[in-house]
């Protein structure tokens, strides 16, 4: 017989162990899906999760993908911790990319150490401004931030499409929907020859450190956490709710914008239609898998980045569509949320004696 009891307190070890359980269950679920599709599940999972990182290049690719994911998820953790549902990070990433890319095109042919920092900064500001729209509408017009931030993703995508097809398209590009390749001075420095890993990873790491400082060592971080736990308490304590909402949206928008500008000045080197394989949406999963904790998010971003690489490898070797990655990402979040049940409830397996029956 199974008995379910409510826990009185949440033990920290379970809090960080359930994500691992979720990953394990996802592997089983993925194996079942591969089996149904007619593949040997063990082999398919090997192609998905081991082959991609079995050499140095693969490992560098993992970091290339984890860099934006981690950065966006860190920003989102500010929003989610305070119960603000910014799910339009994809749009903020694209808008950051558009603004940064526009500045990069403006500096086309310029040399100078100042070019790249200006581009990066403008990308962050772009993302920040775009995130301000749902924040301001939420605080002053009571508008649902989930829907507004999401609608803006489509608007940002269409704006990018308009720019790369129309006014910003490469004059020598035979009408391909893309801009010029940015000048060398506008590109993120590559860290190792032959690998794609770039200096953007330092931006991510610095952001992780700063957000840890803000969240755990400042009054603002305390306010964010209290508002997330209980809005009433926050109001009672006299926190300025509106300012905080706007602030957390600005932080997460800036992070998403940085991720966007990191992509276009890093691995991509120009603007085109698909500057992000839905990093903004996937980062939501990263944020939850990392328990909205800066260190947790680093590990989570590596795991989720692997699903991107795995999907690419599986597409080549098993001819499954690259969307398989999304199936895995959805499953991780399902299992993670589901296993949270263990945080609040104990499941006891009781053996009943005969005379009790």
């Amino acid at each position, binding site marked *: 017989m199974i008995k379910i009891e409510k826990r009185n307190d949440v033990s920290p070890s379970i809090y960080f162990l359930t994500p691992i359980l979720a990953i394990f269950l996802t592997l089983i679920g993925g194996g079942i899906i591969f089996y149904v*599709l007619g593949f040997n599940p063990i082999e398919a999972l090997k192609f998905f999760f081991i082959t991609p990182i079995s050499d140095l290049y693969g490992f560098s690719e993992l970091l290339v993908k984890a860099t934006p994911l981690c950065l966006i998820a860190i920003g989102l953790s500010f929003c989610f911790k305070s119960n603000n549902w910014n799910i339009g990070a994809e749009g903020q990433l694209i808008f950051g990319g558009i603004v940064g890319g526009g500045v990069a095109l403006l500096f086309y042919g310029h040399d100078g150490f100042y070019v790249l920092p200006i581009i990066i900064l403008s990308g962050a500001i772009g993302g920040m401004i775009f995130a301000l729209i749902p924040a301001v509408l939420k605080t002053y017009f009571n508008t*649902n931030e*989930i*829907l507004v931030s999401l*609608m803006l993703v*489509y608007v940002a995508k269409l704006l990018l499409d*308009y720019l790369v097809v129309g006014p910003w398209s490469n004059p020598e590009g035979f009408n391909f929907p893309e801009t010029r390749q940015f000048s060398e001075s506008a590109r993120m420095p590559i860290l190792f020859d032959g690998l794609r890993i770039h200096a953007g990873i330092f931006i991510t790491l610095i952001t992780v450190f700063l957000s840890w400082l803000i969240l755990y060592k400042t009054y603002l971080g305390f306010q964010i956490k209290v508002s997330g736990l209980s809005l009433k308490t926050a109001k009672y304590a006299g926190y300025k709710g509106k300012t905080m909402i706007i602030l957390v949206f600005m932080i997460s928008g800036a992070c998403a914008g940085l991720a966007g500008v990191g992509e276009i000045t890093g691995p991509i080197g120009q603007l085109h239609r698909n500057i992000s394989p839905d990093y903004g949406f996937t980062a939501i999963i990263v944020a939850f898998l990392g328990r909205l904790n800066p260190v947790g998010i680093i590990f989570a971003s590596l795991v989720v980045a692997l699903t991107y690489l795995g999907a690419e490898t599986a597409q080549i070797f098993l001819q499954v569509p690259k*969307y398989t990655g999304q199936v895995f990402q959805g499953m991780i979040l399902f299992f993670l*949320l589901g296993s949270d049940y263990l945080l609040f409830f104990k499941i006891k397996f009781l053996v009943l004696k005969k005379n009790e029956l």
Partner: protein
Amino acid sequence: MSFDLNFIGILIGAIMASSVPLILAASGELITERSGVLNLGVEGMMIIGAISGFALMVITDNLFLAVIGSMLSGLIISIIFGVLTQSLLTNHVATGLALTIFGIGMSAMIGKNFVGIPGKEFPLLFINLKENVPFLGPILFGHSIILYFAFLLPFLTNYFLKKTKIGLIIRAVGDSPTSASNQGINVILVRYSCILYGGAMCGLAGAYLSLIYTPQWIENMTGGRGWIALALVVFATWSPIKVLIGALIFGGITILQLHMQAVGLRIPVQLLSALPYIMTIIVLVVISRDSRKIKLNTPTSLGQIFYKEK
């Protein structure tokens, strides 16, 4: 382009057709939300309905089975959401997002072998009358049975919620789950049923897209309609009749935008395509500005986890 009466009739008919998936999905989600559950997985359930409907049509060559199958698959995938939010007490927003991500991925995975296959002609009713009656013909006739059902649905939903006992129970559960539970109502069972119903309607909405509206399978073919349907529920302040009005407005914007593109106005195509999304934001702002009105109409326990101590 001539603005004769018949043309306007055809235009209105097209607007009605493009509003069908929104009406179906939003009406389903409205029932779900009335029971206090916020399911953000509408887009995911719609796209699963779209691919299952299309796949079944190709495999069985039977449109009836395809439509029923799409509803069933929408329902089945909503079970995941039900188990997580109702039995395992997970956060509604996060679970709904996971459902959408999972649904889009899953549909593309299933749909890989169905790209580029032409659809089958869906039977349209009263074709003769459509062509022979001026103006009213293209508005009232020549549509699929699903369209007629969709236009009836908001009225049925309205009656169901206001006049039937089950409707009353659903509203009670959404507004005050604790008191409903104390009255002996099984809150979790009611919410489960509403989630499954919502899933089936979203599945049907998807099937309308892949079987009738643009009869083929295209990856991501719902294109944000699920999210617009979610916005419509807020826009309608949880009233089924207003869902119908809202869906027609958005259908109107979509069709208008397509016609403006076709006419070749000197407005960028992308700006026109962005119109439905921008309009959604504007409408949401206008509706939500009055926070009292929203508070009065929102199901009180919307998105909150219900747990009964045993």
